[in-house]
């Protein structure tokens, strides 16, 4: 008998202590108020129970101490939110819980808006899409993690990947439907996955996008035959402004007359009288020449009316380091520097047969050259590689 009494006392003391632990976070006074008679009450209840010959233990009779504490607190009208929470946790609240609470408050406010309910019902219908997308995202992140981001593809390529994706979809949908992961011990798994997915959404989509672009360009290169040692042909949908030779934009033109002598200050127009320009940066950009160790910037020529002209070749300029910026931010040559002609590709071009002596083009007037030093009017059409120009 005495053993039984001792056991009961021990049980009661242990249970009461556990209940008090469950009330942690409340002021000591309130805990004392709520549990003053706890041991006596529990012992009485046990005694009654034994008299009724059920003989159930405390947990069977009252449930877990945590549940008992929660019931006590709820009935006493004390907020359960701060339950079982240390001072530390109150100072630094659980971010997940905070976010949940914030979201709930936001939802309440949104539901007060007239436009929200139809929007919400629309979004709710779309929820399964998110469930599938979520599974796909987990696969992408896992792939990037395990194999590296270069292995990411919009759709799985291997059978095993399809299997994994299918499994993830099942997990995700079952969680979304509230069928799985509802117990306290496993709930963090999908919550964590959700957070990771939301954070990873933009990076993953961005990576995929740039991947598919790379894949496209590699495919185009392959299609153009460049993998078989051939040169790559680039098909441009849009016409490129400027002059293009062999797929490369030209920055400057060098003009030679029929005898092969270099010409300075040649104005070039297309067949509709539009100036043929090679640069469109108005002097801001830098251009590298073969075998030069410093980039150059160009300056325009001025015509008789004072307008800047960029279709006078060769463009003159100077190494970029000799430029400075004026008050308007426009590049100007430093005092003491003068614009010169960039290095010529060669001092003399091969002379033309049978055309040299009389510059016939002067009379037909299709091309005019400004009167620079050593400029001889000529037709540079042979040298110009099919210029494309837009107005």
């Amino acid at each position, binding site marked *: 008998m005495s053993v039984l009494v001792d056991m009961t006392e021990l049980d009661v003391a242990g249970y009461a202590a556990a209940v008090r632990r469950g009330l942690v976070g409340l002021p000591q006074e309130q805990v004392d108020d709520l549990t003053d008679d706890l041991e006596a*009450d529990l012992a009485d*209840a046990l005694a009654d129970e034994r008299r009724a010959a059920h003989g159930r233990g405390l947990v069977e009779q009252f449930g877990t101490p945590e549940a008992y504490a929660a019931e006590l607190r709820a009935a006493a009208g004390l907020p359960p939110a701060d339950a079982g929470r240390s001072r530390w946790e109150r100072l630094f609240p659980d971010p997940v819980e905070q976010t949940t609470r914030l979201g709930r408050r936001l939802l309440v406010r949104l539901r007060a808006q007239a436009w929200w309910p139809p929007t919400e019902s629309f979004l709710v219908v779309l929820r399964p899409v998110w469930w599938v997308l979520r599974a796909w995202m987990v696969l992408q992140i896992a792939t990037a993690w395990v194999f590296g981001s270069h292995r990411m593809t919009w759709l799985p390529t291997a059978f095993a990947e399809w299997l994994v994706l299918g499994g993830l979809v099942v997990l995700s949908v079952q969680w979304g439907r509230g069928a799985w992961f509802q117990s306290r011990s496993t709930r963090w798994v999908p919550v964590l996955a959700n957070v990771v997915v939301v954070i990873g959404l933009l990076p993953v989509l961005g990576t995929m996008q740039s991947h598919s672009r790379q894949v496209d360009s590699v495919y185009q290169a392959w299609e153009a035959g460049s993998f078989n040692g051939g040169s790559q042909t680039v098909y441009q949908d849009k016409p490129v402004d400027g002059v293009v030779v062999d797929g490369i934009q030209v920055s400057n033109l060098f003009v030679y007359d029929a005898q092969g002598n270099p010409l300075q200050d040649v104005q070039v127009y297309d067949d509709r009288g539009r100036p043929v320009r090679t640069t469109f940066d108005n002097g801001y950009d830098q251009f590298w020449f073969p075998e030069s160790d410093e980039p150059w910037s160009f300056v325009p020529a001025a015509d008789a009316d004072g307008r800047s002209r960029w279709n006078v070749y060769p463009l003159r300029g100077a190494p970029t380091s000799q430029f400075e910026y004026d008050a308007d931010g426009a590049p100007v040559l430093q005092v003491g520097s003068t614009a010169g002609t960039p290095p010529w590709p060669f001092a003399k071009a091969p002379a033309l047969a049978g055309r040299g002596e009389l510059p016939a083009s002067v009379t037909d007037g299709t091309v005019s050259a400004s009167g620079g030093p050593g400029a001889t009017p000529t037709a540079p059409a042979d040298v110009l590689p099919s210029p494309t120009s837009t107005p």
Partner: protein
Amino acid sequence: MDTTQLLKGVLDLAVLAVVADEDGYGYDVVRRLRNAGIEEVGDASVYGTLRRLYSSGALTSYVVPSDEGPHRKYYGINAQGRAMLEAQRKDWQEFAGTMARLLGTETVR
């Protein structure tokens, strides 16, 4: 029907009625509620309710020392508690009457 849900709304009233009958300590109140036929009530709910009614000023409390057992905290009703009990009793009777009429016509139909 799950009577625990119904009980939640009227536990205050039940506890007030029991204490108004005679002062009592925690488990005593539980026992008297059970004897009155309210079986599903949880002990902790009753203790919490007593505590809350005391905090709101509807009950008085005093400790009775005991020679052979633990000291017991007794609860008794005061004027404010009686007024609350009267008001809630009226509300309950009206509500119960309304429900009875409603359910009565339901069964006739």
